[in-house]
């Protein structure tokens, strides 16, 4: 009797399975006519994805979203005139400081009612007091910045349009002033609260103590350009620096890095396992996709909705075909789309073992529903500047769909040697020398240390990157 029952159950299961698989073959084009991969497909199914989320550490694929509002550099102004400490994400105290400033800012933005425009002098005064200066690589749309800080709507937005630099000036554990700068039109705003729980002052003291113990008198003296009046022209002065460019008294130390293309090696060998994972991230079935190789060696994958190309030097280009929406990644809206792009990028980089640390370098919205976001790789707390491609990752999304995605696929390893950049003035002189024939004042917008990657494979070194205003 039991045997008959078992047979009936087994038969029923097989019939159900048969119907299910037959329906998949009839409905899902991906299963036609060959290349059927049951496990790959179930991984994408709704039930499986819910189950897998329970076991996967989803935070591991949200690195870039969390890094979205992480400053490229934090400068601690201790209150003494030229005793300042500069930290990037490689510094041991950076995360603690970033968490403290983030929670203080989130608290401020959720409570304050309005922002007031102030004179530059008040901003400069805050920087000579005991304060924290946050320098972002990107100029943020204020609405987006506040969303990342956890505030959807705020009266602050009626005054502030763009945020590129922030100064936190704690007056006590509850009283704080936050200054914001819009770099594009050089305007300054402040918000203040007497009900903002913060530990900023304690963290400033902690960083200072740490610096005194580890560096002592050997630490570089940091002046802002405005301290030295390099932001104001006099006589026949040909060069003007942005007031917030930090000027270090000594060269900067760094470790060189080595770049690698994780997908295609220098001898042309393709890592098929990682390539399949890459295609999978874009929802492409590697077995059924139409593919060919161009004369240049570029791998081309053609789908109904998009084309994906990977050149031998590791440049990936995903483009939705004209008239199609592209790949669905999120709900509509700039915030959702930027977050989804960051998550997608993290998932892709984790899958193909590319460099995981990236920081946002620009976020733009055209006002018609299309959002563009760019990221730079970050190694040892320094951004990697792509001289050929412009940025490591560029993505364009609209209506919750990814329409364009480019990335120079790279992984970086840090070499075990220490080198030094030239002094800032030497780098500045070299950069200016190229503009001497122009009969106008040269305005320097940004000046920072970062790695330079020309797209070739091999050792990369850090140097000063100078952004001259057109």
């Amino acid at each position: 009797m039991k045997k008959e029952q078992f047979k009936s159950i087994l038969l029923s299961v097989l019939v159900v399975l048969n119907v299910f698989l037959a329906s998949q073959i009839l409905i899902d084009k991906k299963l036609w006519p060959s290349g059927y991969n049951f496990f790959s497909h179930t991984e994408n199914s709704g039930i499986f994805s819910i189950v897998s989320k329970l076991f996967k550490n989803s935070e591991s694929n949200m690195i870039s979203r969390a890094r979205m509002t992480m400053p490229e550099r934090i400068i601690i102004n201790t209150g003494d005139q030229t005793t300042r400490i500069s930290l990037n994400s490689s510094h041991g105290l950076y995360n603690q400081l970033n968490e403290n400033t983030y929670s203080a800012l989130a608290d401020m933005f959720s409570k304050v009612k309005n922002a007031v425009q102030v004179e530059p002098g008040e901003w400069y005064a805050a920087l000579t007091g005991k304060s924290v200066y946050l320098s972002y690589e990107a100029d943020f749309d204020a609405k987006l910045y506040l969303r990342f800080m956890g505030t959807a709507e705020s009266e602050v937005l009626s005054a502030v349009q763009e945020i590129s630099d922030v100064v936190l000036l704690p007056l006590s554990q509850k009283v704080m002033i936050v200054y914001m700068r819009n770099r594009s039109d050089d305007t300054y705003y402040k918000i203040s609260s007497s009900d903002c729980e913060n530990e900023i002052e304690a963290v400033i003291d902690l960083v200072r103590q740490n610096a005194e113990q580890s560096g002592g008198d050997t630490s570089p003296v940091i002046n802002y350009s405005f301290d030295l009046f390099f932001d104001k022209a006099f006589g026949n002065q040909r060069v003007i620096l942005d007031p917030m460019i930090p000027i270090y008294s000594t060269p900067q130390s760094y470790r060189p890095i080595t770049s690698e293309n994780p997908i295609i090696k220098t001898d042309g060998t393709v890592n098929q396992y990682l390539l399949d994972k890459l295609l999978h991230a874009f929802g492409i079935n590697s077995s059924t996709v139409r593919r060919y190789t161009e004369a240049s060696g570029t791998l081309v994958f053609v789908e109904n909705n998009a084309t994906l190309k990977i050149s031998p030097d590791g440049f990936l280009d995903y483009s939705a075909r004209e008239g199609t929406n592209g790949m669905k990644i999120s709900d509509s809206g700039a915030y959702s789309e930027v977050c989804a792009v960051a998550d997608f990028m993290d998932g892709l980089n984790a899958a193909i073992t590319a460099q995981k640390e990236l920081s946002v370098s620009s976020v733009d919205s055209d006002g018609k529903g299309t959002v563009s976001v760019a990221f730079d790789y970050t190694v040892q707390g320094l951004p990697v500047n792509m001289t050929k491609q412009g940025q490591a990752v560029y993505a364009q999304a609209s209506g919750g769909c990814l329409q364009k995605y480019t990335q120079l696929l790279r992984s970086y390893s840090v070499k075990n040697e220490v080198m030094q950049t030239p002094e800032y003035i030497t780098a500045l002189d070299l950069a200016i020398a190229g503009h001497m024939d122009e009969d106008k004042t040269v305005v320097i917008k940004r000046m920072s240390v970062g790695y330079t990657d020309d797209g070739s494979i091999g050792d990369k070194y850090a140097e000063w990157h100078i952004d001259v205003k057109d």
Partner: protein
Amino acid sequence: MIKKFAAAMIAFMLAFACIIPTVSFAAYGNTIPLGAYGSRSDLIYIKRPESHNASTSDKTYTISATGGAGTKIKIYKYNAGAGTCQLVKGETTIGASGLYSTVVNLNNDSNIFMVYAYNDWGDQTVRIDINRIKKSTVDRLKGITVTIKNFF
């Protein structure tokens, strides 16, 4: 004989006239007199401190200046014991940017620095006085812009 003497005198005077400008601003090596003055006043422009004197509570001070490319700068500090100014920052040549900055140590309450600039057209000296005072005094002098008073 008189002609020979006159020719020798003229040759000597010519040579002397050519040498004087070179010697006068190349003479300063490791020391410079506190009262030294140069032949020019337009080789460099001191940006910080604006009024050529300042007060600070810090152990160091950053002097900044602008000048023409190729102008050389040395920094001397007055030593009261020796009665002269001694070299503390060796020769630096201003580059294409025209910008110059250097950090000097403040060992005493009263610190006198001489900025010495020179190029093919002459030389210039600028005296800078930096006083070290207590931090509380600096804050009072600065009249801190951001205070609780103007906060509300």
